[in-house]
């Protein structure tokens, strides 16, 4: 399923114009829909490709569309690109223990490259689901506040109603309590 700006707007006719070629790349939903999440061992990814050769068309499209997605999902990984250094395009991954993985990318389309890289060094769908569920379990449903769906304690059942709609009872107001204390003293 390929994202478009019209789909993001929810089916409503989209007349606005964002700047640039394929500005869908500059939306958070596009960046979060990236498929490649590297394993913890991968530290550096280097991309060697050519700008005008036919053998690196897939690599060019990968860099144009999918490289920001990769960097968004893996902020700790350093992504480095080199243009027109060698006749053949390739990717190279540098792992934690000094190991290097070379991936030949000549005459491949960008979808094949994404599949291949995900298969070699990406986390599987099962692991990603496990991470999601563990993050949800650590969140307490009873929380309220500016970050949660219930903004104020007045929205919770069994608590006092909002002071903007109804006045507080007299005994609980600070004015009344201070007045009582002063009267007791003097």
């Amino acid at each position: 399923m390929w994202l478009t700006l019209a789909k993001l707007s929810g089916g409503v006719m989209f007349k606005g114009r964002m700047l640039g070629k394929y500005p869908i790349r500059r939306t958070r939903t596009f960046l979060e829909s990236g498929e490649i999440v590297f394993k913890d061992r991968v530290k550096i990814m280097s991309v060697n490709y050519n700008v005008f050769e036919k053998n690196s068309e897939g690599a060019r499209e990968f860099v144009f569309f999918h490289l920001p997605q990769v960097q968004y999902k893996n902020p700790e990984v350093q992504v480095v690109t080199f243009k027109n250094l060698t006749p053949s395009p390739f990717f190279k991954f540098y792992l934690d223990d000094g190991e290097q993985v070379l991936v030949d990318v000549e005459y491949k389309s960008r979808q094949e490259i994404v599949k291949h890289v995900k298969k070699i060094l990406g986390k599987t769908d099962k692991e990603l689901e496990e991470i999601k569920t563990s993050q949800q379990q650590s969140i307490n449903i009873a929380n309220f506040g500016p970050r949660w769906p219930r903004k104020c304690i007045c929205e919770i059942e069994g608590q006092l109603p909002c002071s903007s709609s109804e006045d507080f009872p007299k005994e609980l107001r600070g004015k009344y309590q201070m007045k009582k204390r002063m009267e007791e003293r003097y």
Partner: protein
Amino acid sequence: MPVGRNWPKLLKAWNPQWVIGRVIGVRLEQVAKVKCVKMVLDPYIVTYFGKPRTFYAHDPEKKCTMGDVVLLKALPEPAPTTPHPSTHEISEFVHQVGRIYDPIRGQRCEGTALLPPTKHKLPVEPPKGRPYREIPAPERSPYEKILPDTEYYRNKDMHKS
């Protein structure tokens, strides 16, 4: 890692164990200045921009010239060099100036063209930085395959088509 537009704070907190960078300074003794780029998201425009940071690498044998692309490894303790203590050491040359090898074909190349086997020696003119006679001669690169001459002549017109 801090998030947002505070670039200096973000770059100061970036102390990785493995980095790739380009050599920009060679005049210091036993130290090479290496410029490494980190891609950082601008939260308003939602695009990635490269923010540079210089690391100081310890090479007492003076192996690198200006413009080499180098893989650095973090030292367990910063080495006491003057005027800057060097935090990393050079573990591998990714691309050397004038000596780029194509890892898939195993031959020396210049841009998008392969070079013939007669030109696999070093060029005569010294580049900027240290001259080649001061640098010790390299051993065979890990990618170099001993191919017959026919492999070059088969791929000679590759960049033209």
